[in-house]
């Protein structure tokens, strides 16, 4: 070891660095490429949210990006502008009176000269258009959906639900993962079976139940059941708990810790990735849950979450995809931020299990 010269050590170190850098570039590039394909529909969503729906009908063809036609206002009406070659001179003229053989244009730079007649097929002319994202869509969606109010409702429903889910599911999963309950396997199958029956046939009896106890028209049916655990998240947490080595728990128990302390001090600190995953799942579920809030909050406009409120743009005669997408994008901001921040806990879990990454 001592024979190694400092020079050699450095070059070995450099080579490693270089290799690492190269690999990082390669993997990252590949991922970005994959991402750009994966998010293509998402890009579609953004362009739709910025589209000027009215402008589209004045364009020859539907643009990929939020473009609007260049127009010239002549005597109170807007006319689209085309590139026309007149006397072998290219010009940008406004099409006032389109016709199949002959069309009449007006020169925006010299409107007083009157109509310019042009023979030919106007649809083969190049239309002048410009990129003009319509940010007002967001403003319009914000006010029409009453965003602040509905956002608040959604947040309350989601946060209470997350708390309930975490409290109950962690306990129940712990029971399934670690305790010698008689008939545990059968109980577990029963647990799973509660999510197997399609909910279309349980919807009406469930509604009857909530209506009988006077919970319809309130948030209670959307919140309280989550305090009683659900199969999806219990199953996930149980799976995760089962992967945890038992040594730490045994050690804690030798120290005289009871089951609750083991859960709090040994199991939970090791399970942050799964717990965070469950929290995110439930948050996203509650954020986008649609039919239950629709049916339980019928007529309670001020209690509705965003997922129900946005339906106003889904009217029978004249839906507004642009406003739907704008609303959804605004609603997406919070979950995305939460997900981003929650990743810190992903890491923390790893550190505590003694794994550096």
């Amino acid at each position: 070891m001592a024979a190694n010269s400092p020079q050699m050590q450095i070059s070995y170190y450099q080579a490693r660095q270089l290799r690492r850098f190269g690999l990082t570039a390669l993997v990252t590039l590949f991922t970005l490429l994959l991402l750009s394909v994966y998010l293509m529909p998402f890009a579609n969503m953004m362009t739709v949210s910025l589209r000027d729906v009215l402008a589209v009908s004045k364009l020859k063809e539907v643009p990929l990006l939020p473009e609007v036609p260049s127009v010239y206002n002549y005597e109170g009406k807007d006319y689209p502008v085309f590139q026309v070659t007149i006397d072998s001179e290219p010009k940008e003229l406004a099409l006032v009176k389109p016709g199949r053989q002959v069309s009449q244009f007006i020169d925006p730079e010299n409107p007083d000269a009157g109509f310019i007649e042009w023979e030919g097929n106007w649809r083969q002319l190049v239309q002048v258009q410009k990129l003009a994202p319509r940010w007002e869509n967001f403003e319009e969606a914000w006010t029409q959906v009453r965003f602040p109010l509905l956002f608040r409702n959604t947040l309350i429903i989601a946060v209470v639900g997350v708390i309930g889910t975490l409290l109950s599911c962690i306990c129940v999963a712990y029971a399934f993962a670690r305790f010698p309950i008689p008939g545990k396997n059968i109980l577990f199958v029963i647990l799973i079976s509660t999510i197997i029956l399609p909910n279309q046939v349980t919807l009406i009896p469930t509604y009857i139940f909530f209506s009988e106890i006077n919970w319809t028209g309130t948030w209670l049916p959307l919140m309280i059941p989550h305090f009683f655990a659900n199969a999806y998240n219990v199953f996930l947490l149980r799976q995760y708990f089962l992967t945890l080595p038992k040594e730490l728990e045994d050690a804690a128990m030798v120290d005289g810790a009871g089951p609750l302390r083991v859960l709090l001090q040994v199991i939970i600190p090791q399970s942050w990735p799964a717990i965070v995953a469950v929290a995110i799942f439930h948050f996203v579920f509650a954020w986008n849950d649609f039919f239950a809030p629709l049916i339980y909050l019928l007529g309670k406009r001020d209690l509705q979450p965003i997922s129900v409120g946005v339906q106003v743009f889904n009217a029978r005669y004249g839906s507004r995809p642009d406003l739907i997408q704008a609303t959804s994008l605004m609603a997406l901001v919070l979950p995305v931020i939460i997900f981003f921040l929650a990743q810190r806990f992903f890491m923390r879990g790893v550190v505590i299990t003694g794994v550096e990454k």
Partner: protein
Amino acid sequence: MIKHFRLLIVLTLLVGVLVVTASPVAKAQDRVKIIWFCCLGSGDNPQQQETQLRVVDEFNASQDEIELEIQITVFADADDAFSTLVGAGNAPDVVGPVGFGGSNRFAGQWLDLEPYIEASGMDLATIPENLVESYRTLGEGLTGIPFAIFPGVLFYNVDLFDEAGLNYPPSVAGDPYIMPDGTEVPWDYNTVTEIAKILTVDANGNDATSPDFDPTQIVQWGWVDQYGTLRSEFHTFGANYVVDENGQVHIWDNWRARAQWMWDGVWTHHFIPTNSELNSDLLAGNAFNSGRVGMARTMAWYTCCMNDLTATDTSFDIAVQPAYEGTIYAPIDLDTFRIHKDSKHPEEAFKVLQYLLGEAAGDLLNVYGAFPVRTELQEGWLQAKAEQYPSVTHWEVIPNSAALAPNPHHEEWYPNYNEGQDRFDEFRVLLFSDDGGSMDVNAELDRLESDLQAIVDAGG
């Protein structure tokens, strides 16, 4: 940590217990609560929602016996929501606006209004007798009071007609159409085919009569049965019953002719958009409103929601529907409010009904785009519409077309109605879909007929 956790558990349990025991018991109140369920038909458009909410507020402010609550669900989800409520024995009191189609989906669930009309002394004198009779269906008594009529008309895009150098369709039933060369032809579906082809244009500017026309790149179409249903389309070639007195299902010859005309329009001449084109960003599901369709045959309710055209300075007008073999059959829609038979407060519900059909009618009819049944309201409605859409010059077509409605109605009930209507839809979707391009129209209609027979037979 443990302490906090225990505290949290205790708190949660406490909250749980509190919530369960002290669940919101209906506050003692003197007012009877009446639920108005909307939108099994029209009513879910933002402007319509706004007006309906205002109408409810005004009603609640006007008296202290009834508390009216409106439950608005957009059309797409309204069926499911309504089924859930009814299935759970929690039926709303007042339902509407709803047409025959929407109410037949829930046939047998509507209250006979006759006793309430008599008790209240409501005056039906200004309503045409035959319209009142049309609500006396299925041996259940009078389940609705005529309120809104939506005559079948033809909307046409003036700008596109001008661009193509075409004359406008006639606004008087029986008038001929004048072709570009000056010849007078009858205003019928053959003429529509001729001019619709001229109105259909590809991206290069070639129309559907040109040999260079490229049907894969169409940017403008000649004709659409806007928000059409197969049975209403069938009835434009003559109305008839799906099921005769002997329980036999018929797809009549004139209906077959309509199906063939549509198939030719979509796949041979390309002047009717396919489903894929209808849902493309070019037409965005609302074909005529996109400004890229020459003619739209539909009902007058479309006047609720044509603001895009006004906003883009597009001129459109209203014409009379074309004839089939010399007669115009313009299917009509009729909407009203109904009361569910399980309503716990039918008398109060009827009071709400009276209010909606009376005091509130003017505002509601205007946002629904519905022509009033009552003669005294008609003038005001026409004025309001003329202000909303200044490019329309022939408003008289709407009231005049009511007389062109064929009988029986295109949403007439028959056994196992919902399943049958679904089967009709299936045919229509196939006709307009990619796979429909290679279909044998008559063979498919035969299949439709026999499937429907099985469905009707199963319904007893």
